[in-house]
């Protein structure tokens, strides 16, 4: 606020409290989204039951027919499964923001002295927490069915961090998508249309060598493939693509980080602009 015209009888607010206010408001908004999850715990199924089920099904169904050079399918698969289930959990973000925009509560927020960005930041932070839960579930399920890493603890944690960073960036893309469409149903449909090909035409659950040439190029350049390859490298798991000649997979870690930062750099300002457009009149 500009301090030039405050009448003497009005309490003025110190300008240096604005960052503190922002942090507090993000906290309040994050709590709100976590309370939603507590009210409807089934919302969490896509970061709990579904990932566990996917890991078990894929490892035992695909694994029975898959030969991975330099290891077992089980050890190959977990890093890719982790990437895939994290990305397939993000459509919930698109649906969530679209639902918010459809209810009157947004008008309430807009009459309060809070920054609009806190609404987006709160949602994204709550989603990040559920992504951490998702990663934990995959790790535990993987461990239970016999997945082992062959790297230092720090390297393994870095692997999880790499996937988490990408999934977080992807959730901002979903946030944009949720605000670009008119209603939650469209948000749901459209986000799945995006997520499915990205998840499957990739190095996440199968090696790309066996794919037809065109599909293989697409899969090799799919950001999800670099993230999966990077996580395999950091976990010390079988990673046949490391010597496949595919540049984005041979330099998987920097490419994965680059993709994530690029997506964040584009989607965060875009999300704020979209939010303003959706709530202005």
């Amino acid at each position: 606020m500009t301090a030039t015209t405050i009448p003497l009888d009005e309490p003025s607010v110190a300008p240096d409290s604005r960052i503190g206010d922002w942090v507090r408001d993000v906290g309040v908004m994050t709590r709100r989204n976590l309370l939603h999850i507590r009210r409807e715990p089934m919302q969490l199924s896509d970061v709990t039951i579904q990932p566990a089920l996917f890991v078990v099904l894929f490892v035992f169904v695909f694994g029975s027919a898959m030969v991975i050079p330099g290891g077992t399918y089980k050890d190959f698969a977990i890093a890719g499964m982790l990437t895939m289930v994290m990305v397939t959990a993000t459509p919930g973000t698109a649906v969530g923001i679209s639902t918010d925009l459809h209810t009157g509560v947004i008008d309430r927020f807009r009459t309060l002295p809070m920054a609009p960005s806190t609404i987006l930041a709160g949602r994204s932070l709550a989603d990040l927490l559920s992504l951490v839960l998702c990663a934990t579930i995959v790790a535990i399920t993987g461990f239970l069915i016999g997945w082992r890493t062959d790297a230092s603890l720090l390297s393994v944690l870095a692997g999880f961090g790499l996937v988490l960073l990408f999934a977080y960036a992807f959730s901002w893309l979903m946030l944009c998508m949720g605000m670009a469409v008119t209603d939650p149903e469209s948000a749901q449909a459209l986000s799945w249309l995006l997520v499915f090909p990205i998840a499957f035409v990739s190095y996440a659950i199968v090696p790309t060598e066996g794919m037809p040439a065109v599909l293989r190029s697409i899969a090799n350049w799919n950001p999800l493939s670099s993230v999966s390859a990077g996580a395999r490298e950091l976990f010390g798991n079988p990673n046949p693509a490391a010597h496949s000649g595919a540049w984005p997979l041979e330099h998987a870690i920097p490419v994965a980080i680059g993709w994530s930062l690029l997506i964040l750099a584009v989607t965060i300002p875009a999300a704020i602009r979209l939010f303003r457009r959706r709530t202005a009149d």
Partner: protein
Amino acid sequence: MTPSPAPPSSSADHPIRAEGLVKSFGDTHAVRDVSLEVPAGTILGVLGPNGAGKTTTVRMLTTLSVPDAGWARVAGHDVVAEPRAVRRRIGVTGQNATLDENLTGRENLEMVARLGGASRPTARSRAVEMLERFELPHAADRVVKGYSGGMRRRLDLAASLVGHPSVLFLDEPTTGLDPTSRAGMWDIIRELVADGTTVLLTTQYLDEADLLADRIVVIDQGTVIAEGTSPQLKARVGGERLQLVLSAPHPSVRDLLAPLAAGEVVVDGRTVTMPVDPVPGLATTVVRTLDGAGITVDDVEVRRPSLDDVFFALTGHAAEPVTADDDDPLPELEGANR
């Protein structure tokens, strides 16, 4: 068009001031020219039919919508230049409940209080205070989804007041409420004003404006067409009227009554209407005069002009037109899709 800057000095005793507000959406001129002033600690009633521009005016005054032209200052701050400063001091209750359906009443109030700047303990105690004041403690820990329409409205108003605002905007606060809930809402509004809150209230109910508002602004088609106290507005349509229903039509009734009337005597079959001055015993004189001429009277009624009459006199149409538009969604639909 850009909003013209507000004058730097705003009288502190008028927490709401607006001058020449204009807002269009494409080809729809929602608000063409609205100016108003609300003295501190009073209620201004903004009266108008559906689509008159009431909601758009409130949205501009509450920083939700930027005016195309004109300016407004609320609680001492320009709504365009200093929206945050305005938001810190106002409470807003719209026609649609602006609540989080998946949170409990208490969680909603605590959230709004926190976002308004209250510390956690303060937010907690204010939420409790509001729940008690609005008779909702039994529902405090239930999810809002399960609330009735009246409870939702009360909680919504509680959310607007949890930050102790000095200026309160109520956009059709009783639309769609049952008579008991309406009366309850009126009591709450009166209490707030008694405590010094300044209130702007929009309504399409003439009785509501009549009962609550210190001053009334009548809006039609985005323009202020009249302003004043309820008695002043009523005076514009004239004084009292005497209406008689005769047992049978009579040819000389007009001549008999003309000396007693304050204007033209209108005879329509058995029904006679005449403007009258409020003289003691007038109705008795009228009935005796007719009785003396052998005319019997079935019904006598002295009518004071209602705001309905005012509205009709000012706009040439009735207060509640048949056309509904997005300015005022149908009350029965409210909450149905939440």
